[in-house]
């Protein structure tokens, strides 16, 4: 029975269509797994048992008739950032206490329209701000992976830590996630899962709680590359309700899987070889280069000269937008309200109690960099850097590079409550060093597991593609996946 949860989406899809298994069985298997293990992982902040069973039942009725969408009967976990009608939607923040929207995000509506089943809402860093899932009001998430011979709890990465942990621990067939500076790719790399951040504008942001509007994109975290392709196809759409979504047809991403990379030009940016990078990461990168070369791709050394400015510029742009986006959480209309003697005190009390430390830190940074007298020096300057970063990539692609290969993270998963990270926020921010450039440039990036470090923890490689060329990412990631094999944690729970 519990073997059902080991099926990938594509495997489950075949068995459901062939009527070898029922959607209700599959959903029940996941619900049982969640009920048994969520206490260990804290991956779900709410489990929607009844809704899941109702949706699965409806899927079975369709499947019996030989009908159903691309994800008919597939049980998914949904990051708490996505609005789900009548269901806990709090961005894992205290300030949204009790918030149950009357609307459904475009992404989840697309998934339900294709027949997917909702298992519940997944834990995350508060308002997607964090790289370890420890800023959640609902507590930290535990990574299903442990270092060899150790019982130490590790973080799953963040902000989509609940999504990555749930996928890796077989608590959902796949999960929605969001990525503003690496929040899909870093947790995917930390948990041996696949995560893709599509091109900005590929997936509608409508109904997804905003962190930094010009950087936020939703994408899937899944067990393998094919599953990511299947999920992204359903999640992506052009949406009249999000004017930054782009009116391009959504290709059949799955069809790209299995295509040869022969003759493809793979760019290796020298600026991603950072000081103090662990040997394991360097070795992994070289392995990736070797695999692609073996598969017939051409390896080209490239330069993306403004890379080193990306992280500081990101930590100006993202907090600036966040400081404005989070202004609506004022205790007036929904969520938490802490009374005060007047309106100002009510605002202050509500926001002081409602936001956690990291969110407050970013609101303050963002408010500062937008203030009169600082705007030009910080925000405007960061936007110029952003333009240059974008141009670096454009130049590389114009020179014939098809896809860029980099490490996904500068290290493997670290410990929960890591003292170094806790005492220095910048150390935590450095987790995003390889991923933020992609958000700043609005490009698609995929993290694919490629090996392990000396302690037996998974490591990921990142592929960066041309705008709206997710197909090439799936195609290339699949080649790495084939060479590296799949990575699954030893079950200890």
């Amino acid at each position, binding site marked *: 029975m519990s073997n059902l949860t080991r099926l990938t989406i594509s495997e489950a899809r075949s068995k459901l269509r062939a009527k070898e298994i029922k959607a209700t069985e599959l959903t029940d298997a996941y619900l049982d797994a969640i009920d048994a293990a969520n206490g260990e992982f804290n991956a779900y902040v709410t489990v929607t048992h009844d809704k899941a069973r109702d949706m699965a039942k409806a899927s079975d009725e369709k499947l019996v008739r030989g009908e159903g969408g691309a994800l008919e009967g597939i049980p998914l976990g949904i990051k708490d950032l996505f*609005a789900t009608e009548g269901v806990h939607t709090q961005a894992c923040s205290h300030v949204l206490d009790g918030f149950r*929207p009357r609307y459904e995000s475009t992404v989840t509506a697309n998934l339900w329209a294709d027949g997917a089943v909702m298992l519940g809402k997944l834990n995350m860093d508060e308002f997607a701000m964090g790289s370890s899932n420890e800023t959640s009001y609902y507590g930290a998430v535990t990574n299903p992976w442990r270092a060899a011979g150790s019982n130490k709890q590790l973080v799953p990465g963040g902000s989509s830590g609940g999504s990555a942990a749930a996928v890796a621990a077989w608590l959902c067939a796949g999960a929605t996630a969001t990525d503003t500076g690496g929040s899909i790719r870093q947790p995917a790399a930390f948990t041996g899962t696949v995560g893709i951040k599509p091109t900005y504008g590929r997936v509608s942001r409508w109904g997804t709680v905003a962190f930094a509007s*010009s950087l936020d994109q939703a994408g899937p975290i899944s067990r393998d590359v094919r599953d990511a392709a299947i999920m992204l196809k359903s999640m992506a759409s052009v949406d009249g309700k999000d004017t*930054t979504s782009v009116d391009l047809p959504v290709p059949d991403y799955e069809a790209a899987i299995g295509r040869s990379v022969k003759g493809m030009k793979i760019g290796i940016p020298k600026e991603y070889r950072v000081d103090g990078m662990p040997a394991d990461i360097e070795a992994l990168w070289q392995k990736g280069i070797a695999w692609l070369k073996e598969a017939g791709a051409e390896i080209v050394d490239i330069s993306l000269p403004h890379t080193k400015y990306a992280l500081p510029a990101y930590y100006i742009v993202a907090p600036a937008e966040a400081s404005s986006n989070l202004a609506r959480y004022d205790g007036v209309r929904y969520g938490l309200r802490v009374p005060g003697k007047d309106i100002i005190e009510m605002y202050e009390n509500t926001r002081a109690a409602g936001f956690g430390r990291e969110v407050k830190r970013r609101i303050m940074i963002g408010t500062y960099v937008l203030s*009169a007298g600082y705007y030009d020096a910080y925000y405007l300057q960061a936007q110029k850097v952003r333009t240059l970063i974008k141009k670096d990539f454009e130049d590389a692609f114009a020179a014939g590079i098809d896809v860029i290969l980099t490490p996904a993270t500068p290290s493997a998963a670290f410990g929960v409550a890591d003292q170094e990270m806790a005492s220095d926020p910048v150390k935590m921010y450095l987790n995003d060093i390889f991923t933020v450039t992609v958000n700043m440039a609005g490009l698609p990036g995929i993290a694919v597991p490629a090996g392990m470090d000396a302690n037996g923890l998974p490591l990921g490689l990142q592929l960066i593609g041309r705008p709206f060329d997710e197909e090439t990412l799936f195609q290339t990631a699949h080649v790495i996946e084939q060479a590296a094999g799949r990575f699954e944690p030893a079950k200890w729970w």
Partner: protein
Amino acid sequence: MTIIDTRTPDPKRLIPGATGDWEVIIGLEVHAQVTSNAKLFSGASTSFGAAPNANVSLVDAAMPGMLPVINEECVKQAIRTGLGLKAQINLKSVFDRKNYFYPDLPQGYQISQYKQPIVGEGKIIISVGPDKKGEFEDIEVGIERLHLEQDAGKSIHDQHPTMSYVDLNRSGVALMEIVSKPDMRSSDEAKAYVTKLRTIVRYLGTCDGNMDEGSMRADVNVSVRRPGEPFGTRCEIKNVNSIRFVGQAIEYEARRQIAILEDGGKIDQETRLFDPNKGETRSMRSKEEAHDYRYFPDPDLLPLEFDQAYVDALAADLPELPDDKKNRLVDTLGLSAYDASILVSEKAIADYFEKVAAGRDGKAAANWVINDLLGALNKAGGDIENAPVSPDQLGAIIDLIKEGTISGKIAKDLFEIVWNEGGDPRELVESRGMKQVTDTGAIEKAVDDVIAANPDKAEQARAKPTMAGWFVGQVMKATGGKANPQAVNDLVKAKLGIVE
């Protein structure tokens, strides 16, 4: 923005102080609600007078994850208004966020346009006067810019002893902020400017201009200086909601500032409120307390871009504007500039007039509309849309005069009957026996009777032909005013043997 002083000090506009003359400098920021069915970034209705929070979408309430989508109709209206102001239309403009906390501002920011507005520089010609000689003066007032922005909701403080209520019906409604250059030099000019601006947007149909419903309100910037000196420190009087109050606020504020300066004080740059009950302005917040709005481009919205062809198509569909209409009435109908300016001052009046004037003598139509119709409306306190006399009815009255069926004097009576009782003027003339007598036989008899009854007066008249007028009056009296005065005049002279 560099401010250019476009006016030379004019003695007749100066305000005398205790220590000499002062010049008042005025610039206006008018917020005009865009006429549109839906809000600027949401599909919610903009109808006036709905129950509190009835016209609120998820976007207007700033629910988590909601995104603004620009309403193209509002963009068109802004462009049309810009064209009406003879202004530069910017093919690319940017929406920014103006950040501040207020309970009736759900997003915590207002979406506005800061550095790149949709409309740039333009101008409005205002007419001030008449002066003692009855002359009007045309003055050009520069427009600095027009931009689109969201309105806020409304906080209501008198419904509960300890709480305030919030009504979000207006939240997100499209406003055009129309910023003038500091080109006005008297309260009369400022009032004429707001009046003219309101006329233009009403002609265009881009704002209903109803200040009592809050569709148009003005922030008034006032400073004073000695003639010839640089601009003084200004104060901004917020949210003045009638043209009369604009005038009162400026008069009060100018005198307040002059009094301070003449006492050796200095003006603090601040935001003030006008209290219509007391007729005074009072401090709202100082420059130090001014918000830092932390403007930045709204990342939820792409820059607003359209091409020149789009603007040209809107320009081609623009209705005739008041200045053009005025010129046409003067040039083609031969009206005086004064009459024409009265007729074009409101679109409804101009529409009424043009219906009356169609196929008729323009001057006659103008006289009737201005003197009789507008006069009666003034007295009765109605507006022209609901005038008791329709353009067709008034036209028929004018036709009856022209045909000689009634005299001008009878026509005034007929107008009053139509005003009070309604009815077809032609039928009324018949049924009430108001028809002018043109039958010379009947008139002749009346003339003969009057001459026969007054032989001594006839004698005098033969000697002094101007006396003939007395006979004409007597005949008119005898015929109940219905005789054709010209026919009577001719016959009296013929019978008395007066030769001209």
